[in-house]
């Protein structure tokens, strides 16, 4: 199909493979190997977007990742739509649907362009000076208006069907950038046999060599050298070559993050392959060879579609075989644009070149270009451009040594290539926290002092000549691989050198000129000057006040110009103004790539017990507790939480209930000094606990507050079976190991987590013994032989068990510990045996109610990290004779021993049917003014079917002194009166437990 601006020959696109994609609904034809930008240009489409603030028509400025303006929404199918894609890096393929952004009703006719007329008002920071009155208007009028106007494309609204992958990788030498310097570096490093990764953001490695059609390297065309080099690298086992891979973050200790775009460029469905892959590379040495970015020239209306960077124009010509225009003007202050002009001329295009430099300051490029028959205007400035949705002419004028402009002249054209010199891409170097140095000779910041094991090579450190880049790259690669090998390359001399210019000299009134510095955020030179006048003189302040450099291109084309303008305005040397610190990412990175596989079921592990499937099959609903999923309650048909829990609660107290307690943490503590270790960690005494007996243990942090609790069994003199809370298992083991290894290494104790070795089946209720009696071998279950708080080992259902006689319900109870892989079978056998006794499975909610009826605390519910043993009435567990344990000293601090601390009590509502909200606050007097004095809060609150009323536990200031007194508790719509009581509501004498 017609691609009117496609050159008849040349370029690396595959003319045998035509493609077609949509731009704003219209088909655009191109070839495999095109980017969206090159295909649009091949079809003469320059207008591709509207600017952020002023909605000015914008075109394609660049060919690479520095593109600020040509941002498109790309639709790759259902759920695969995303905004703000740079047309210059999206590989064109059939089936893409691209649309321009930030306009209404259309790209061509955008109502928002009225902002352009208001631009005298909408200067830098104008919004800080207005929109303040009336005050209420901010939230309702001004802000919604600003928000609607801001933003670029539209956020995706559907879940993303694509897959993302992650890959940790290691290498001896990571080379970032596969241009001449990077390729030479990889070559040198690879030849030493070291492990090398070479990553390049482009679809094709080669960098500038991909569009350098004139240079020779070591006697052959650059393209041939590239082919040979890639073949050598590809053939080496020790090299990983990653195209389409952007190194975006340089983190501590040579941890470099890169995204590989795996499938976006593929037309056919890519099977199950991920869309993107995050490479997390830990490199021995890093070679940064990311090249340099070209600077635009700052002149009035420098943002019209059709005005490109000169080197980008050359890329479109040579790499893509596209002429962005037929009548070209190059505007430059340096030599490199001459190369682009020569190539354009060679392609048969009409070319004129305007150079700010005086004739005498130009190098051999001048004669070369004139020799090719091109008109060159030296000593000329650009004072403006003509056109609207496409440039139609460039306004130039001679400029004298005094800076004064002579008579204007309009150079008619349909495309402009501009060059304000070059800026090395020091982003990753800066991210690595290396120190930059300003190099006057090339008007740029270059890497100076390294902070990590890296080195920069080639244009990334300001070396622009091809042979020098190759030689430098090779040396860097060899050195990174620890080799002394050096290689001097010979190559065609590159046209280099430029005269720094901040703002092009002009004869226009400077307050009227709108010369863009940051294209995307619509920041003009005038804005930057205004910021400086208003006292924003640090470059960071200027950035934040004007938003220059804060757009999605992160200032790649604008930073140096902005910095130069600030320096000029302050009359300071450029380094005195400083440069901004670069932070990751180098170019924007999809959240998906960073998340990788950690989505859906792999977001966070879901821990389940061996009983989980049984519970599911029996209709359990589950709650999340830490990473665990625990059975919450087992509703029967028609039951809600309330009804099910009431039934479960009664069943336990009347018959027997079965509960999965497998998630409890378990630690096997073994060794000669096990008891002593326990003495030091728990408030309780352990020395005299006999083997086969259990004790409730309470553990504090060194600050005196409760850390965890649990029943501990002494298995033998030198072995304890410790249990912890579900959420506290890892924390407690960590706490124990810390003290053991760092404070008491002399103790001979070993700790092993057995949380998952033992599944725990809790059988609670008066008939518990009857249920298990036929299943147990080798354990005398009689109350005399096996009292409450004892542990026996034996067999149950033919598998070994540690059988605990313990209770978290106040009933006769057993906790059957069996090896996990047998738990389901034992559970089912117990359940079967229990049928005759009315066995009822229950979940965590019922467990909570039953223990609250008995006033047993749950760490994390009654306690919150500020609660001491005395606060919950457990100070009596501390033996008087115990000199020390972790946390003891803190219990003697003045405010911990002071009166008025919150203490655990029970609360009974006047209305027995009213269940308080957990978290409700408690006051003595409801008539006091706000802020009210709060005495405490409700920690647990339930309907107790067994008590026939609601019950609650609370922490109340001086609570134990308030027994039988009245207090008031908040309800959703007011207060309700309660009576303070002992925190035990059922079987106050505690007889049932010894049954």
């Amino acid at each position: 199909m017609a691609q009117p601006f496609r050159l008849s020959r040349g370029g690396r696109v595959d003319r045998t493979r035509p493609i077609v994609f949509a731009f704003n609904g219209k088909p655009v034809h191109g070839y495999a190997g095109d980017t969206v930008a090159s295909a649009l240009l091949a079809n003469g489409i320059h207008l591709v977007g509207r600017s952020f603030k002023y909605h000015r028509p914008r075109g394609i400025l660049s060919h690479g990742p520095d593109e600020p303006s040509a941002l498109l929404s790309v639709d790759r199918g259902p759920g695969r739509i995303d905004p703000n894609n740079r047309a210059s890096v999206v590989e064109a393929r059939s089936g893409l649907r691209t649309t321009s952004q930030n306009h209404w009703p259309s790209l061509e006719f955008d109502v928002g362009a009225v902002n352009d007329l208001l631009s005298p008002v909408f200067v830098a920071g104008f919004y800080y000076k207005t929109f303040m009155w009336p005050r209420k208007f901010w939230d309702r009028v001004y802000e919604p208006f600003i928000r609607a106007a801001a933003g670029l494309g539209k956020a995706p609204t559907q879940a993303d069907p694509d897959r993302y992958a992650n890959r940790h990788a290691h290498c001896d030498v990571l080379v970032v950038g596969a241009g001449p310097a990077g390729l030479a570096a990889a070559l040198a490093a690879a030849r030493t046999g070291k492990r090398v990764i070479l990553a390049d953001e482009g679809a094709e490695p080669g960098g500038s060599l991909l569009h350098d059609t004139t240079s020779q390297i070591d006697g052959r065309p650059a393209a041939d050298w590239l082919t040979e080099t890639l073949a050598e690298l590809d053939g080496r086992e020790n090299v990983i070559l990653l195209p389409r891979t952007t190194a975006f973050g340089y983190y501590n200790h040579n941890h470099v993050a890169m995204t590989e775009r795996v499938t976006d460029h593929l037309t056919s469905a890519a099977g199950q392959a991920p869309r993107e892959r995050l490479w997390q590379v830990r490199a021995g040495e890093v070679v940064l060879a990311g090249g340099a970015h070209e600077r635009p020239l700052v002149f009035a209306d420098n943002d019209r579609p059709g005005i490109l960077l000169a080197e980008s124009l050359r890329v479109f010509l040579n790499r893509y075989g596209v002429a962005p225009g037929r009548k070209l003007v190059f505007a430059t202050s340096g030599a490199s644009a001459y190369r682009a002009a020569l190539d354009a001329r060679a392609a048969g295009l009409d070319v004129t070149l305007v150079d700010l430099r005086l004739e005498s300051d130009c190098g051999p490029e001048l004669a070369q270009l004139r020799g090719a028959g091109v008109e060159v205007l030296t000593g000329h400035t650009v004072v403006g451009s003509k056109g609207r949705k496409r440039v139609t002419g460039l306004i130039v004028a001679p400029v004298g040594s005094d800076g004064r402009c002579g008579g204007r002249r309009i150079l008619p054209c349909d495309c402009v290539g501009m060059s304000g010199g070059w800026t090395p891409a020091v982003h990753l170097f800066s991210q690595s926290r290396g120190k930059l140095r300003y190099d006057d000779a090339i008007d740029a910041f270059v890497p100076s002092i390294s902070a990590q094991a890296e080195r920069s090579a080639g244009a990334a450190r300001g070396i622009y000549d091809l042979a020098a880049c190759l030689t430098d790259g090779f040396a860097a690669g060899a050195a990174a691989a620890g080799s002394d090998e050096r290689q001097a390359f010979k190559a065609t001399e590159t046209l280099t050198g430029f005269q720094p210019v901040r703002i092009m000299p002009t004869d226009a009134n400077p307050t009227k000129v709108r010369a863009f510095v940051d294209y995307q955020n619509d920041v003009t030179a005038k804005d930057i000057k205004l910021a400086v006048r208003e006292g924003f003189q640090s470059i960071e302040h200027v950035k934040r006040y004007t938003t220059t450099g804060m757009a999605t291109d992160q200032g790649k084309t604008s930073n140096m110009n902005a910095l130069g303008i600030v320096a000029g305005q302050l009359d300071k040397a450029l380094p005195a103004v400083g440069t901004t610190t670069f932070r990751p990412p180098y170019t924007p990175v999809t959240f998906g790539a960073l998340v990788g596989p950690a989505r859906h079921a792999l977001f966070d592990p879901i821990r389940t017990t061996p009983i989980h499937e049984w519970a599911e099959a029996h209709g359990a609903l589950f709650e999340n507790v830490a990473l665990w999923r625990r059975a919450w309650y087992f509703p029967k048909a028609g039951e809600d939480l309330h009804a099910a829990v009431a039934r479960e609660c009664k069943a336990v107290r009347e018959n027997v209930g079965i509960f999965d307690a497998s998630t409890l943490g378990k630690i096997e503590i073994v060794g000669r000094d096990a008891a002593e270790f326990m003495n030091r960690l728990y408030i309780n005494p352990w020395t005299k606990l006999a083997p086969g007996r259990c004790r409730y243990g309470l553990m504090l942090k060194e600050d005196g507050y409760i850390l965890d609790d649990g029943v501990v069994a002494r298995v033998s003199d030198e072995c304890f079976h410790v249990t912890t809370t579900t959420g506290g298992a890892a924390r407690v083991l960590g706490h124990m190991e810390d003290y053991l290894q760092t404070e008491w290494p002399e103790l001979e104790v070993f700790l092993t987590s057995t949380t998952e070795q033992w599944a725990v089946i809790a059988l609670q209720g008066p008939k518990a013994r009857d249920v298990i009696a036929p299943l147990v071998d080798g354990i005398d279950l009689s109350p005399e032989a096996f009292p409450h708080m004892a542990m026996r080992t034996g067999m149950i259902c033919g598998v070994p068990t540690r059988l605990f006689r313990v209770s978290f319900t106040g009933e006769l109870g057993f906790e059957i510990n069996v090896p996990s892989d047998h738990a389901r079978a034992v559970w089912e056998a117990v359940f079967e045996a229990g049928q005759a006794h009315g066995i009822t499975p229950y979940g965590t909610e019922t467990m909570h109610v039953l223990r609250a009826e008995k006033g047993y605390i749950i760490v994390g519910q009654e306690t919150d990290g500020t609660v001491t043993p005395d606060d919950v009435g457990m100070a009596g567990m501390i033996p008087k004779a115990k000199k020390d344990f972790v946390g003891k000293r803190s219990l003697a601090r003045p405010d911990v021993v002071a009166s008025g601390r919150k203490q655990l009590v029970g609360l009974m509502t006047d209305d027995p049917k009213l269940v308080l909200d957990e978290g409700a606050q408690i006051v003595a007097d409801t008539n006091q003014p706000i802020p009210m004095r709060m005495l405490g809060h409700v920690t647990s609150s339930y309907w107790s079917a067994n008590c026939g009323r609601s019950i609650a536990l609370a922490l109340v200031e001086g609570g134990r002194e308030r027994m039988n007194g009245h207090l008031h508790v908040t309800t959703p719509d007011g207060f309700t009166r309660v009576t303070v009581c002992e925190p035990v509501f059922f079987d106050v004498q505690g007889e049932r437990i010894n049954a």
Partner: protein
Amino acid sequence: MLLIACPNCGKRPETEFRCGGQAHIARPADPMTVDDGGWSEHLFVRANPKGVHAERWCHIHGCGRWFNALRDTISDRFIETYPIGEQPKSGVKPGTILGTSSATQSEARA
């Protein structure tokens, strides 16, 4: 993500480790004899230097062992790691501010 030289396992990624804060804060032999001010210092006051810091790490997802380290909190570079109960060998004192001298440059490559 830092790369940390575990004395047992060699250089391993930070995610395998847990940082335990300032090192060499010994628990008093008899805490009950320490006054409130001293106990508060023991519990809460930390060096927090801008410069070299002696801190504790545990290779929790590796060998499970605690060890000590000297790290420069300005550059996050480790100077050395050493076993619990020992003093650093490098002789660098906690609190020292390291320059960007060539010596530290070569350490970056160590």
